[in-house]
């Protein structure tokens, strides 16, 4: 009896949050951007799987499927989705409809942020999980690979974390700058040279390119394998494979057949980041994500509607 009352009290308390979350999810789902993105993601995944079906081993192929989420082009869509909730023409509707009701600004912000994160992760997982299952279970004319379930889960987690961070970054920039277009432009100028920015702080291993390069190694890690041991296992093949992924990814669009062995561009030559620590990456992206949400909340709290 007591627990029912407690549950209903929590339910009542959470009612505005859930209402905004559901409303936002519904609005987002009915937007053309999201539907186009879902369609394009499915198409690109199919193209990548089809083009590399007989070329790449499991780990390399899965890493190539994750490349569009980490580097290009889905970064752009994710950022745009993150930027919109409290900027531009929505503000008026927002003030008239929601913020004049008994809802705190933090509740509103948290609900809209959650809606975007849930939507982005749903689109990502809905497409990538079946593709990975297909790659893992199908018999392909390539040598056996040592991809582990733990490796797949952690790789998906890391990419999901980067996407969550991107939504949060878009959210913060949209709140700070108010104009969605300006916010997107600023983010593009910040995100693309992120490797350079991170290198200033000796944090290159967190750059999306370094992460993507290390994904194929991560996919082959087992649960009990330590970071040190994994480092020993990282081999030059992964670096080559990553170079192949990049050249192959772009060749899918240009309908040019990929070269069997692409020459390595200088940028990708190093073997320094062929592996990453899940813990460090979680902290490296998780803490800035939390910081972005807190900063956006503070900024939104002080803002006039």
């Amino acid at each position, binding site marked *: 009896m007591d627990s029912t009352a407690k549950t209903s009290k929590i339910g*009542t308390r959470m009612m505005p949050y859930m209402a905004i979350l559901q409303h936002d999810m519904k609005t987002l789902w009915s937007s053309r951007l999201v539907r186009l993105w879902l369609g394009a993601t499915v198409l690109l995944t199919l193209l990548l799987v089809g083009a590399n079906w007989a070329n790449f081993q499991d780990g390399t192929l899965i890493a190539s499927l994750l490349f569009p989420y980490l580097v290009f082009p889905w970064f752009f869509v994710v950022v745009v989705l993150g930027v919109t909730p409290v900027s531009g023409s929505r503000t008026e509707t927002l003030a008239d409809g929601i913020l004049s009701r008994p*809802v705190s600004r933090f509740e509103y912000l948290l609900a809209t942020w959650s809606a975007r994160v849930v939507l982005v992760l749903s689109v990502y997982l809905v497409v990538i999980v079946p593709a990975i299952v297909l790659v893992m279970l199908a018999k392909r004319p390539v040598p056996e690979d040592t991809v582990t379930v733990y490796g797949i889960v952690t790789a998906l987690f890391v990419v999901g974390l980067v996407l969550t961070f991107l939504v949060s970054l878009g959210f913060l920039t949209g709140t700070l700058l108010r104009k969605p277009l300006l916010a997107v432009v600023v983010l593009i100028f910040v995100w693309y040279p992120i490797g350079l920015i991170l290198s200033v702080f000796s944090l290159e291993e967190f750059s999306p390119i370094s992460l993507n390069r290390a994904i194929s190694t991560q996919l082959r890690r087992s649960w009990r394998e330590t970071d040190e041991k994994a480092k020993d296992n990282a081999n030059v093949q992964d670096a080559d494979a990553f170079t192949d992924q990049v050249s192959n990814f772009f060749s899918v669009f240009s309908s040019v057949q990929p070269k069997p062995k692409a020459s390595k561009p200088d940028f990708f030559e190093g073997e320094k980041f062929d592996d990453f620590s899940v813990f460090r990456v979680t902290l490296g992206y998780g803490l800035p994500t939390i910081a972005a949400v807190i900063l956006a909340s503070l900024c939104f709290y002080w803002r006039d509607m």
Partner: protein
Amino acid sequence: MSPHPGAGEEVRMELAIRTEHLTKIYSQRLIAVNDMNLEVPRGSVFGLLGPNGAGKTTTLRLLLGLQRPTAGQAQVFGKSCGPNAVSVRSQIGYLPTNPKLPGNLRPIEYLDLLGRLSRLPGEVRKPRISALLRAVGLLGATDQRIQTFSTGMCTRLGIAASLVADPPLLLWDEPTAGLDPSARRFTLELIRELRKTKTVVVATHILSDIDQICDHLGVMHEGRMIYTGSMQDMKLRLRQHDFTLELEGEAEDVRRLAREAANLKGVDTTVDAGQALLVRIAEGRSRSRSLADVLKLIDAGNLSLQAIHSGQNATENAYLQLLQEDEAHGFHR
């Protein structure tokens, strides 16, 4: 020690809204609300009157916590207003001017969303939504998306939205803006009905609306509250010896009559809109005798009298008088 402890608090409890030196300056440039002290009695229909840009909407948004005051404070039912003052907003039903509503939703979905934002359980929410949609005459439009609604329908839905949580205080900003006569009449009648159970604040620059529904009034000008009080007091401020005579006849005859009447002792006249003659009788003069003299002139002239109004447009005149006085005070303001 006060001889009546808590007496001051008791008086405060009777107020629905109270502001003290409330000030809002935008970007250190524009003074939207200037040192405003306002008290709205509980249970009143309070008209917030003022020309465009006087600061009415900003005042309402400050009360809702949508904007933060630069100085001073506002209280609703004794609780301070602010961005996170959820308990204050749960007491308020807000209708913005030409409300911007989410076009992708249908009326029931929208009201249900607002009901959930107000933490209303389903068993209360659902019947209330249908009752409100019936009350505002939108029962036939429940399957339409809001983006297909006309201005009047949006306002009706906005009215329903402000009533979903059944709040004791309503803040309605220009509720009759853009409405056709029947919708306007409906809105005014609804306010009359709501006054029985709620405190209603209506911000408008339409004087006839104020005249019909409000019992208390606050006049804003350039961000300042230049008058607050009852409607009766407001009308008392006006010169008491005014009559408007509606005449039928040639415009030239009306003007001639005005000249002749102005020659009478203690009578001043103005021709208004061609066919109406405004007669002002000086203080100390007999109103009946002066009016009889004017009527004799009408009878002698080539004009017929259609109607006589005493104190017609009293609110408008009092309002304009207030604005003129405020501007004339200049620096002393």
